[in-house]
């Protein structure tokens, strides 16, 4: 049974550089289900029972999307609003998702340094992801650190390839290993792999 479900939300994949490259890595990953929301619901008419059955069949839920205006593209919110029903995902009797894991895989146009108190965006990325984190908590799910591809506007092809390989490794880890073995207090999922590499990318940006 595939363990990991990717809820993919990109309104214009045709012009994407990062995500179109990332999802090429999905080939040959046996335990991953890729679910392209904009492709499945071009009119935003989400099939709630189907989405819920998908959730029940997976243990790890990954929301993969670019960060637009400090949040996910609108279909992701539509999905959350419709699928995570009261009495099903949260509230009285809402225990269907208990014990599952949720995590964001996102790309951001600006570098991580602009997501600091002194930077252009004034707050760290994790703070913008609080709505997702608390959504997971409300649904009795464990929220994992996000995988972030920052500075995507300036990334060269090699760097994107590097992130793609991280993407593949992390997905594999999430499907194979029990998460308890890992550090869910890390700031980014990227840190699970090679903290040095990520820190380097963070400090210097791509060349």
């Amino acid at each position, binding site marked *: 049974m595939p363990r990991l479900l990717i809820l993919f939300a990109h*309104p*214009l*994949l*045709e*012009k994407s550089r990062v995500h179109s490259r990332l999802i090429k890595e999905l080939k040959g990953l046996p335990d991953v289900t890729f679910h392209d929301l*904009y*492709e*499945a619901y*071009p*009119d935003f008419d989400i099939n709630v029972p189907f989405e819920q059955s998908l959730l029940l069949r997976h243990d790890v839920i990954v929301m993969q999307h670019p960060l*637009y205006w400090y949040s996910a593209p609108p279909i992701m919110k539509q999905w959350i609003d419709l699928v995570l029903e009261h009495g099903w995902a949260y509230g009285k009797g809402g225990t269907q998702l208990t014990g599952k894991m949720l995590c964001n895989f996102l790309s951001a*146009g*600006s*570098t*991580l*340094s*602009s997501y*600091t*108190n*002194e*930077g*252009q965006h004034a707050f760290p990325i994790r703070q913008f992801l609080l709505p997702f984190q608390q959504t997971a908590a409300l649904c009795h799910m464990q929220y994992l650190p996000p995988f972030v591809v920052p*500075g995507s*506007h*300036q990334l060269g092809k090699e760097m994107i390839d590097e992130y793609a390989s991280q993407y593949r490794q992390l997905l594999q880890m999430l499907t194979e290993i029990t998460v308890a073995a890992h550090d869910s207090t890390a700031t980014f999922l990227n840190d699970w792999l090679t903290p040095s590499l990520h820190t380097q990318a*963070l*400090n210097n*940006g791509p060349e």
Partner: protein
Amino acid sequence: MDQNNIFFQAMVYLAAAVVMVPIAKKLNLGSVLGYLLAGVLIGPAVLGFVGHEGESVMHFAEFGVVMMLFIIGLELEPTVLWRMRRSIIGMGGLQVAGTALLLFTGAMMFGLPWQQAVALGGILALSSTAIVLQTMQEKGLMKTASGQSAFSVLLFQDIAVIPMLALFPLLQNLPLPASADDHSSTSMVAHLPAWLQALVLLGVVASIIVAARFIMRPLFRLIAASRLHEMFTATALLIVVGITVLMTMVGLSPALGSFLAGVVLANSEYRHELESNIEPFKGLLLGLFFISVGATIDFRQVLDQPLQLAGIVLGLMVLKVLVLFAIGKIFKMGLDQNLIYSVALSQVGEFAFVLFSFSASNGILPQALIDTMIAAVAISMALSPLLLLALERFVLQRIVTNTPDDDRPADTIMEENPVIIAGFGDFGNAVGRFLRAHKVGVTILDNDVERVELLRRLGFKVYYGDASRSELLASAGAAKAKLIIITIEPSEKRLELINTIKKHFPNLRMLVRASNRFDAYDQMNAGMLHIYRETIDTALRVGVDTMHFLGHRNYTATRAARQFLRLDEANLKKLSSIRDPDEYINTAREKIEELEQTLQSDLFHLGKSEKSWDEEGLIAEALQPNPINNGQEKAAPK
């Protein structure tokens, strides 16, 4: 000039009506008063075109009342009638019994023999179905508590006429007039023993119900399938006339018989069609009836004994109003509703004319008394609409209790669905199914016999008829509905329907199906705001799927189709406004020109690049060295 010439007569009546009724309407007097005035005008008092033959015209015109009751029956489903049983028997019974009893006492006090007092009491207790219902319908009161109560009382009175006709011969107290022969008994069954008479009566009523239930529907289907509109009219008339003949033969009230047939047919899908076919005849005959009542008012009699006549009319009407008002109180009607219904029913009805001549030939009442009474009846009929008018103007405005309808469940007579769908072909039925699935009340008009049959079996409310006729629209509740969805074919018929609605129901919102751009142009010219071209949405869905199968993203293709539709609609409006409808002949060449214009417009608008989620600008900006940003980033290494 030969005044007996039927065409001359017809001309006089019609001219009087055409002149007087619009004037009365303009003065807010209502059509009934207009007709009555027309009658007075052509009667012996003023122009003298109509003499005593006016009475025979009146007898003929009473047929309008029969038709009116047939139509009322059509609007009353049996279940609704059953729900009204309490008010029909309670209010109606009390009214007839109470009024008759008081009138009887009064007549006895004037020293009349008891037989004459009984006859007068019975006759004068009745009110005029024609005047009351016509007036109240015109004022839109039929659905209010007062309208419903008035209707209940009138219905009971119509039933009460039957025993009266049966019992009157027992009241004979004068020598029979010389001319009287067995002609006085209209009934063919009078010579039979009583038990057999009763059996025949029951048999006739039962056969009307059975025929209406099991024979008429297949008959209508057959006739509707012939697609000859006049045959439908003929059949509808045949039913009413046939019932009248049958009922007269056995001595029952024709009005009651046709009412019964109407009730039985109320569940039928042909109900609206029947209604709209009978309606014009009913209107004309009722008008004729009112005119002849007006012509009957004998002004010489009024001038001879003005005080006596005034006293009789006043006494009669006051007494009737008091009894009715008391009953209204018992049945807990609001003050204003009670006043309206009491005053509305205050006149003596058309049955009085029949019963008076019946009394004369049966030696019950003396001719002199009858003449006075007929004058009084006619005057009361003319007065009651005026009184109702005065009541509305001067009294009710001050009371304004306007209780938002009392605790009685509203007895619905008309369809009250918010949506009418005209045409239930493939297009209409998709809309109808969708609306019904969401519990939106839909009344459907369609003119395909087999489809109507089938849909009714499946539980839809479908009615047979040509939707572009205003009478059918009216009976389908167009005056109350919120909107109408027009999907009938062909497009010319839709324009016809649009014009009918604009004229008769200007407040009804129209959602119109258009076959193509040219159809849409015509509808725009007709002022339509909600136009739905039937092929464009589906065609664009095919376009989206095609792009998808060719590897385009679904969402992008969907957005493109939306944008295309938006631009196309805008373009449609633009082209429509520069098009000259007079010069436009819709030739093949022009269609090609139109196509060319649209295609060029597509290229122009859609060729522009889309900017949504475009990151090129952002990327360019990010790659440009920006001193301030760089400084910040260097100052804040993480």
